[in-house]
């Protein structure tokens, strides 16, 4: 298993420092960071990012012309969603993204509404909590500023398919329980600490159970809503669209993510929508 993991990691193991977490030993507060004990994720030069091994994303819904499976190359993903403190650093140096200065084209009127002021997150937005009420444009601008990018839908969903203890979380009862409990709870007035979320198999925190997250290609989702909508005018709105059956009707949360993405405009902000950044995996 260990050998297989290492083989699967391929080039990613090149980034290993000595004594990393592949041996299964508990490492407290590692610096640089590791994934879970026994996790295939490895230590990376990038602080706070975790390698997600290459894999296959199976889209929830697709048109007849779309691939049933999408191969995803290995990539790096932020360990936790971008926090208020991190976003504050960004708007401090890029004034055009401050609440009072942002263009309505790039963020709607509730942008950073939960912050106390332009440069003051305040009590409703604790420093370590995920930043919410940010638009796609703002999330993208942050990522560019940080030298990163937003993950694609395929990347995000591949990472989020992991369970707590296994790379494939489909049958992870604990994860499902936590996920559906989160979906059933109202959005809290103040978000929880991002770094305190339980890590998954790869060591990534908060993909489920913290906030919804923007993806770079959110505007590919073409679900028009109800099936009656796919006739008449709606069919002419999209060239070649028209979704066919879903791969896993039981994956209720994935339906919700797809519905959310397709309902969003790029300048929208909501009280439970944040983001995290990704990067291409370093190649030797």
């Amino acid at each position, binding site marked *: 298993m260990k050998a297989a993991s290492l083989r699967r990691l391929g080039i990613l193991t090149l980034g290993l420092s000595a004594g990393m977490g592949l041996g299964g030993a508990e490492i407290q507060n590692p610096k640089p960071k590791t994934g879970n004990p026994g996790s295939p994720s490895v230590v990376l030069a990038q602080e706070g990012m975790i390698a997600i091994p290459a894999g296959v994303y199976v889209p929830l819904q697709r*048109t007849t*012309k*779309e*691939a049933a499976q999408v191969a995803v190359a290995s990539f790096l993903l932020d360990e936790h969603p971008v926090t208020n403190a991190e976003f504050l650093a960004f708007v401090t140096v890029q004034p055009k993204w401050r609440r009072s200065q942002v*263009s*309505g*084209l*790039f963020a709607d009127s509730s942008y950073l509404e939960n912050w106390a002021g332009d440069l003051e997150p305040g009590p409703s937005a604790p420093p370590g909590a995920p930043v919410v009420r940010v638009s*796609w*444009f703002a999330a*993208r601008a942050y990522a560019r500023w940080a030298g990163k990018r937003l993950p694609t839908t395929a990347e995000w969903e591949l990472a989020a398919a992991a369970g707590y203890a296994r790379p494939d979380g489909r049958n992870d009862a604990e994860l499902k329980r936590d996920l559906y409990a989160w979906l059933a709870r109202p959005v809290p007035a103040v978000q929880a600490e991002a770094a305190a979320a339980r890590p998954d198999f790869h060591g990534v925190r908060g993909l489920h159970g913290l906030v919804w997250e923007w993806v*770079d*290609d959110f*505007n*590919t*989702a*073409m679900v028009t809503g109800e099936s009656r909508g796919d006739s008449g*005018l709606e069919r*002419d*709105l*999209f*060239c*070649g*669209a028209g979704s066919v059956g879903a791969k896993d009707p039981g994956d209720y949360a994935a339906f919700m993510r797809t519905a959310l993405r*397709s309902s969003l*405009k*790029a300048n929208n902000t909501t009280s439970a929508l944040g983001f995290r950044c990704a990067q291409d995996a370093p190649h030797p």
Partner: protein
Amino acid sequence: MNAIASMSRPEICNTIRYTFPVRLGALILSGLLAVPGALAAEPAANPDACCPAIDAAAFTKNSLYQADATFTDDTGRAVKLGELRGRPVVLAMFFASCGYACPLIVSDMQTIREKLPAEIRERAAFVLVSFDVARDTPAALATYRAQRSLDGQWVLLHGADDSVRELAALLGVKYKQETDGAFSHSNLITILNPQGEITHQRTGLKGGLDEAAAALAAAACAN
């Protein structure tokens, strides 16, 4: 509305004021806010100059021209959308190898053009931006221009994936590449006023061309 093509500009603008009083209010407001220098159409800018300096601070709050994305036209020249400021614009996203909706969209843009009064038609820009960042190179777009007999009023743009996705997000266009290389995409024709603000969008593939032409004329009249 077809009749507007034969009207003089004052007649057109009066007709439009009468027909679209509500929209006009907003346009007058944006006209008052406009920078005086922005009124002059500048289609004759030196085509060899790369990215003429544009004062981004002068763009209005809802101007798409605030976006800093850079595109390349079919002559290989770097283009920022802000260069279109001062002209009414008909804008659509497409891909050259599209066999279904895109030819219709281009034909519809040509129809909108025919419906315009001559004076506005001459000032307008007709812009096509490709989703197909891999195949619709400037050379491929030049071929497309020749095949479709698109004259100098048409601006054909290639962009990096980042720029194309940002523009799509600004327009509300959704798109996705299929396994056969073709793209599923929203069918949208957008009208921009001389400040680069969206004043009208025609969705779908049927009808709406008179309204689009009227919106373009109204946008041009606002200045």
